[in-house]
């Protein structure tokens, strides 16, 4: 029996060690801090802490966009950075710990990438009043030292909704959301409003893959494929996905059904697998890189402002993509809608009625 216990201990230790290895990819630039002397002097020498959402650098989507903003800022402003990322299914305390470590390590500003950090940031930020924090996609955590970088996803979604309606031959389009959260509801609301505006009476099917607190809907392509298949079977010919990692399944379903799909966050006609790129009609662009870069620039110029900073159509925070040329024929109409939204003559809803 003693042998058994020893084996169990070894096994458990190995498991913990490997689980630990999986959580952070130790290739942090902080291990070899860039020497400020070789860089052009900036107004404020930045030491940037980045806490990514699950996936981190290399997810070809949300986190990569944030990383691109960071890279641009580092190249132009001269800064050093420490990057850490979240793990699937981790506890709230792990996120708190991550933010605390960055702040204690002297990193300022600290950027929390993703709404998952809202609760932990609200706890951590008051303990470091001299550190500037920013959180992307959430207005839940507020404070004197927190900037909330949010996007008008509904405005971008309105444009791709209009594009779907104008391009649909069956008068039936679909929306697949990853998890039924207020953030993803904004995508759905904008998409529905845009489709309705371009073709009144159009049928818009809608399906969420999971309900919170089950966030697996952002990482389960099988579910995305199933839901989209159901929509194509029910007569839809274009499906818009705001489902993170499950979106690949939607593209697969579109390809199998001979339909089209609309990408999200980044220009997916460039980033998705080559075999499905031609089914991607357009993508709703959410320029997280612009938001991160702009934020870092304001901090570098010592002009940090707490509170909500909104990136909408007018500032180019959201947009639609034209890669592949599939929406070139309706570009004039889409740009017309864009202008109307910027003017304020169209107000896009943020919740589904």
């Amino acid at each position, binding site marked *: 029996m003693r042998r*058994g216990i020893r*084996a169990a201990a070894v096994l458990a230790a190995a498991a913990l060690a*490997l689980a630990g290895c999986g959580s952070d990819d130790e290739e942090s630039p902080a291990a070899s801090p860039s020497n400020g002397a070789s860089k052009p002097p900036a107004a404020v020498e930045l030491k940037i802490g980045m806490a990514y959402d699950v996936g981190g650098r290399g997810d070809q989507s949300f986190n990569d966009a944030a990383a691109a903003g960071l890279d641009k800022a580092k190249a132009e402003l001269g800064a050093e950075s420490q990057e850490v990322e979240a793990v699937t299914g981790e506890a709230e305390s792990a996120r708190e710990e991550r933010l605390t470590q960055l702040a204690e390590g002297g990193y300022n500003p600290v950027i929390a990438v993703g709404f998952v950090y809202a609760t932990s940031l609200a706890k951590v930020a008051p303990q470091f009043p001299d550190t500037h924090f920013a959180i992307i996609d959430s207005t839940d955590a507020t404070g004197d030292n927190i900037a909330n970088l949010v996007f008008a996803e509904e405005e971008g979604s309105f444009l791709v909704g209009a594009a779907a309606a104008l391009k649909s031959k069956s008068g039936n389009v679909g929306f697949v959301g990853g998890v039924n959260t207020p953030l993803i509801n904004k995508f759905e609301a904008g998409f529905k409003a845009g489709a309705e505006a371009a073709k009144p009476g159009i049928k818009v099917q809608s399906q969420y893959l999971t309900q919170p607190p089950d966030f697996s809907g952002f990482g389960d392509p099988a579910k995305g494929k199933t839901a989209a*298949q159901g*929509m194509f079977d029910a007569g839809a010919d274009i499906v818009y996905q705001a489902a993170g990692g499950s979106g*690949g399944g939607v593209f697969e379903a579109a390809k199998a059904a001979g339909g089209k799909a609309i990408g999200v966050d980044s220009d997916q006609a460039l980033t998705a697998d080559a075999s499905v790129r031609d089914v991607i009609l357009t993508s709703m662009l959410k320029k997280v890189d612009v938001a991160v870069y702009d934020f870092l620039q304001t901090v570098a110029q010592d002009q940090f402002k707490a509170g909500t900073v909104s990136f909408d159509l007018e500032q180019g925070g959201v947009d639609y993509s034209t890669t592949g040329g599939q929406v070139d024929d309706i570009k004039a109409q889409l740009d017309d809608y864009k202008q109307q939204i910027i003017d304020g003559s169209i107000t896009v809803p943020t919740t589904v009625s």
Partner: protein
Amino acid sequence: MSAAVQAPGGGAPRNAGGGTRPAARSGSDRRTRLVRLAVLLALGFVVVSLVRVITGAQEISSSGTLGTALGLAAPIALAGLGGLWSERAGVTNIGLEGMMIAGSFGAGWWGYQHGPWFGVLMGIAFGAIGGLIHAVATVTFGVDHIISGVAINILGLGATQYLAARLLTGTEGGGSTQSPQVDELPTLSMPWVGDQLLDLERHHWFLVSDLAAVVRAVTTGVSILTVLAVVLIVVSGIVLWRTAFGLRLRSCGEDPWAAESLGVHVYRYKYAAVVMSGACAGFGGAFLAVVAASQYREGQTGGRGFIGLAAMIFGNWRPGGLAGGSLLFGYTDGLRLRQGEESIHALLLVLGIGLLALGVWMLARRRFPQGGASLVVAALVLLWFALTDTVPGDFTGMTPYVATLLVLALASQRLRPPAADGVVYRKGQGR
């Protein structure tokens, strides 16, 4: 080898309701049970068809839904099959999820480089490695099965996250959490019948269209891996119940000490069973990566290993039962993702009618409390159906779990796990 052996001590975690049973089941008894099952299935089919006609919720028996159900059920059934092999040899395996994760990573990592078939093979191999670790811990070292299983789950997740970050970062189309795309495997379709059946299905006739949908679902666009999964379940059933090897393997799960006294090399059988278990779970993971998603993605198993284990318990540690449990789960999961709010609403009517029938049957057999409870619940469900048009999305997501739980609750009185399941067996030490 009597099946009525009591599990020694309190070591068997899931022995409730098990233990005693008529020693042998005569052939005619078995035939009546099969006939009863067939009648029940046919009745259920008629009810579903009827409900479809009444409510107009065509999705509840469309070939699309049924085909999806098959595809969603396959990985769950494979995980369940893994559980079956292991637990029939007396080793509780809650590490299936970890082995599945390992399988999905193996399939994604190798699949994008050397083609999907090689990926599937490597998925199976990775799962088998997980099984081997479980076997070493539980059989050779006598570690508690639950502890080892939990460790495998943590290890499976941690090791794949680590390996993915090391091996997939920077690949074209991949990243630290996903692999590049894996090429597709062929699907099988019977020539010319697909369109005819679809035509028949689109008429929405009572029973005829439903039948056409069922036939179309199993003859059109079925992945070759789904077919392999079905074959594997059948072959497992034959090997475990119709061969000397299977009899010896199962004897290790019922009473390893008796098996030992008859000269069975218990450790060897347990090793074979648990490695096979891991291979099945790895195959399930490979199915997810290659067929369902065309890539490895972190977290894509989504607890299917545990659901497979539940499907196996639901199926009373038998291959036919676990296939039924997986299909039920796959069906309800597919249904809620396809026109979920309308379809699940129609499903309420099916549920109401089913509970009503159950209640009446129980009252007729003078089981008044159970019968009364069934009727009350049936009335509530039917009332819910009558007063609403759709079921809100918050509830449709729970459907697969509620349905499985419900059937499990109704059927659980008859479950009988292997008598020595989960018991730590030491060679030559007696009980």
